[in-house]
């Protein structure tokens, strides 16, 4: 019994021991989930179809798309004026405005105006606080 439980750790491969063990446990748990819930998993098409049909697609997908564009543009724009944080400021203003517009329900001028004002004030204030007051680097 003593021999069976004895373990020698090879330092060169010690980085793989725990990930392998955790991966093994995950595989076993995954198998247990498959075996105990296979009916639910096979019939999950309806569940996902329900989620898709009830989803507010323009708002959700619009948020994701706007966020991806926002993240993608921040660095290239910021590189035009290095170490000033202008990439964050210049990209955040339209991002906050467009996301706000996306989340609005009634889009009359009186509804859009506060969104526009906030889109100008909030990023400017945050940019000023972090770059000028806290001296933190922004893209």
């Amino acid at each position, binding site marked *: 019994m*003593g021999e069976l*439980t*004895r*373990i*020698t*750790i090879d330092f*060169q491969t*010690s*980085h*793989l*021991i*725990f*990930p392998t*063990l*955790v*991966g093994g*446990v*995950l595989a076993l*748990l*995954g198998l*247990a*989930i498959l075996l*105990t819930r296979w009916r639910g998993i096979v019939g999950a098409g309806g569940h*996902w179809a329900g989620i898709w049909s009830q*989803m*507010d697609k323009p*708002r*959700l997908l*619009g*948020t*994701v798309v706007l*966020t*991806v564009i926002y*993240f993608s543009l*921040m*660095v290239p724009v910021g590189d035009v004026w290095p170490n000033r944080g202008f990439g*964050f400021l210049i990209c*955040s203003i339209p*991002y*906050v*405005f467009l*996301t*706000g*517009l*996306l*989340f609005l*329900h009634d889009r009359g001028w009186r509804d859009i105006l*506060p*969104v526009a004002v*906030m889109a100008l004030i*909030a990023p400017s204030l*945050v940019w000023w606080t*972090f770059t000028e*007051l*806290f*001296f*933190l*680097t*922004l*893209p």
Partner: protein
Amino acid sequence: MEILDIITPLFLALAVGGTFVGIVFGAIPGMTATMAIAVCLPLTYSLGLENGLALLLGLYVGGISGGLVPAILLGIPGTPSSITTTFDGYPMSQKGEGEKALRIGIIASLVGGLISLGILYFFAPVLADFAIRFSYVEKFLIILFALTVMAALSSDLLMGIFSGFLGIFISLIGVYDITDGGNGELRLIPPGLEYWLDGGFSLLPVLIGVFGLAAILEQAEVGVPKGQSMADVKIGRDSSFSFSIFRGQVGNLVRSSGIGTFVGILPGVGGSAASILSYSAAKTFSKTPERFGKGEPAGIVASESANNGLTGGALVPLLSLGIPGDAATAILIGAFTLQGIQVGPLFIGNNPQTWEAMVIAMIVANLAMFTMMYFAIRMFARVVTVPKHILFPIILMMCVIGAYTINYGIMFDVWTLLIFGLFGWLGVKLRLEIAPFVIGFILGPSAEIYFVKSLEAFGDATIFFTKSWIAVVLWVLILGSLTASVYLAKRGKGGEATP
């Protein structure tokens, strides 16, 4: 004198200001204390540890407390932990007793917060002193116990354990750090991503993603429901409040605060479990259980004292064992990490000033919460009408700041935020349990060190069972929590864990 050094005007202003912002976050349905802390974390970069913690603890206490406002006035829990406050708070509001219900909830919140703070103050150092004796074996078993408790209290045991191990697995991506005794080799990195994932996924972008971005994606998915107008809010100007309402409620207050604190001490178990347990207990012990759910003040007392009791309780395992008690305290680990301080059994002994600062900040936050909410409750009632189409984009922007500045300007951390925001949103649909996942992610690297070093030192796998009587007790607790969970699941009375 040292205490006076801590209590500077800035320290007080941050604790009070944090409490105010926390109440606002808590009062807006869809926004939580966890989100408030995640979003405001970057503000602490330049504040220093004590001042930064004053802000974050204020946000924590305020965020948990603010949830009672929409729970009572709209029947919508502002935070998950206020769910049982709706049971009696909203019926009272419908009867024109909204203000009275709010004041009952505020007082119960204060009592719950202070009782749990007392337990934190006396119990955390004792537990830390005890935990100092733990070797790597016991430390590994403590983490295993934390994960099994969380999984056991999840709505689905199997998915809870799976989520916890998934969190550990993802936390292992990257280098096996030499500074922790590793060999400096990379593992689990997909080809081509070595440059980005050399250090693995950073903790804070992951947390901000699953608690900040994911919450907004969930709101976007349901169309970002229109905010309520003041016409929907029935505060009940004519309702009279008297402290005599609390006559006969002392037992309920103490019991519920105790339950909340105890649940807080259990790692990863959310406030909703605390309030549900204490509400059930209050109903069981009540002479008039039939009144519960119809506007019974005792229901609000139980729910609110329990969820505020959580605040002190959740800090106990964090400060004595280095294991966060809930999602919000998990983010507090980020604040310590930013300042290069490791939380664990040595924390209180090595950082007495920070420990005292935390206790003082909690006292100030609780008193500020009471003063602000009790005397300006009508103003906070208006918060529930703040338009989300203005708030959410700003929160998204703040999430970016938090993720980008954590490692002083790495854009990959911002992408990590998006990846884990989408993961958090999708994970809920896949029935993954987010709380065990997050705690697994936080504790994974430590679990690896403790596990591998134990085997290196002793060279025998049985050491995890035979090292000491503490190891045996921990195994009994691990097996006990799993057995209890299976038993409860069979009886159809499984608990609940929430992020």
